């Protein structure tokens, strides 16, 4: 789906590349989480997936980035909009109509679709995103969590194969964060869409992620399934791994090895329990 080879990008006016020699590939249906300390380049990287870089943000780009057989480094965002949907951090600044329905219809309308087709897509997208009942509501009257759902519906209505989400839970309270991440994971199961998520709240996404990519200073420094990636070194990178993983790492350091590092509370609980049962 996405293949990246030696991708490097420097913003105009900057003397240092924001991302350097990035190499990886993402397959269809994967749930990939990208994380890392502030300034590591994750925001820059994902904006290459739908050509916001380099068409919206100017700079020098080199290397290869193929998104669904299109060279994203030479394309523009409007072309990729049909294939790659993008949900941004601030829910308020993505919605601009006076009713959710009209906002969701915006994308399909832009594609020049016929009214019937647009209507179908709008209904379907709002259903999947769980906001059928908010059709006539004005976006500014919605809660943060509802707004992000609406933003997701707006993107789904374009029927993309990949959806990129840039820290969608930043402005949400814990419960809404939990719910929206669950909804995103469900998308993968029901619609088969590939998910690329930038997220700091690793404690919430670990159970859904196939792979975690950790970036630092413009490079990918660590990559793999969550359990492989949550080691002691990761904490030093400035990444907040789940506290239960930290706990097991600490125990291991003191000589109490309970096996593979758990990434969820359930896993951790099970491992501890097993220990007692073996006793």
């Amino acid at each position, binding site marked *: 789906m996405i293949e990246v080879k030696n991708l490097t990008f420097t913003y105009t006016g900057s003397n240092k590349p924001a991302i350097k020699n990035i190499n990886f590939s993402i397959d269809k249906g994967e749930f990939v989480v990208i994380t890392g300390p502030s300034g590591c380049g994750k925001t820059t990287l994902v904006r290459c997936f739908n050509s916001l870089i380099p068409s919206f943000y100017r700079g020098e780009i080199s290397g290869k980035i193929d998104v669904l057989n299109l060279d994203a480094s030479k394309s523009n965002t409007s072309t990729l909009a049909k294939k790659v949907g993008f949900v941004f951090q601030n829910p308020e600044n993505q919605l601009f109509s006076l009713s959710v329905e*009209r906002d969701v219809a915006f994308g399909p309308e832009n594609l020049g679709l016929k009214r019937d087709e647009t209507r179908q897509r709008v209904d379907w997208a709002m259903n999947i995103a769980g906001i059928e009942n908010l059709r006539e509501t004005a976006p500014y009257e919605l809660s943060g969590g509802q707004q992000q759902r609406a933003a997701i519906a707006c993107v789904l209505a374009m029927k993309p194969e990949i959806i990129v989400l840039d820290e969608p839970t930043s402005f949400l309270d814990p419960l809404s964060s939990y719910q929206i991440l669950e909804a995103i994971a469900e998308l993968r199961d029901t619609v088969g869409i590939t998910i690329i998520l930038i997220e700091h709240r690793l404690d919430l996404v670990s159970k859904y992620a196939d792979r975690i990519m950790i970036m630092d200073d413009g490079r990918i420094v660590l990559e793999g399934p969550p359990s492989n990636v949550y080691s002691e070194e990761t904490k030093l990178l400035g990444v907040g791994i789940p506290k239960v993983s930290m706990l097991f790492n600490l125990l291991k350091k003191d000589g109490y090895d309970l096996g593979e590092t758990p990434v969820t509370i359930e896993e951790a609980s099970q491992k501890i329990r097993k220990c007692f049962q073996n006793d």
Partner: protein
Amino acid sequence: MTTPVHRMDPRPKFLIALTIFIMSLLSMNILVLLTLFLVQIPIIYVAKSFHRWFNSIKAGAVLASLIFVMNFITGSTLVFSLTMTLRFLVLISAFSLFFMTTSPDDLGLALEKMGLPYMLSFTFTTAVRLVPTVALEAQTIIDAQRSRGLELDKGGIVNRIRKYIPILIPLIVSAIRRSTELAEALESRAFGVTQKREPLTVLKMKQSDYLVAATVFLTLLIGIYIQITISLPNFDNNVTMPPIWQFWD
């Protein structure tokens, strides 16, 4: 807000405002103008917008008084001056009634239907749509700066103006940031790809809309006819300013 007035298609609503506008310009009779003013009041009540309408009248009161004074001082009769003032208030009232009961989205759709290019109507509706957001942000910025000791109500006129810099700069920076984020989101949803858009919701004139439009148009025709043919009694009492106050002549 869903009142029958809000739900009306914007085009007949605009026709109402336009008709009132034309009739108020055609007539110099204070009774006619008073009627034009009063006839809006039941509409305002149906639209449940009395408070907002009253606020816009209050806002126009300053200018209205100025019109009255300017007319009276320069020798016009009391009734004439009142007529001019009333005409102004009728205008404010009619158009504010239109804007209060028409959503920017509907307005944009109406403009599009009348041939305005999509990009322009989009710019217009988004701008209108962002006004409350920016106003709210301005309040937050004012709060934040007051919390650092900024006192906007103290000092001479020059100082007071300067004190608005800590409000304006963050406001502008925020506005730029917001526009950039919005632009990113729009691009990501293929904004501007096709010129031929089929909007999901279409403005359709219902029977009631046609009825209103027809009635209003008829009223306009009758009004013009009456104005041209019949001369209504003149209620002017010829009261003018006492000579001592006249600076002219």
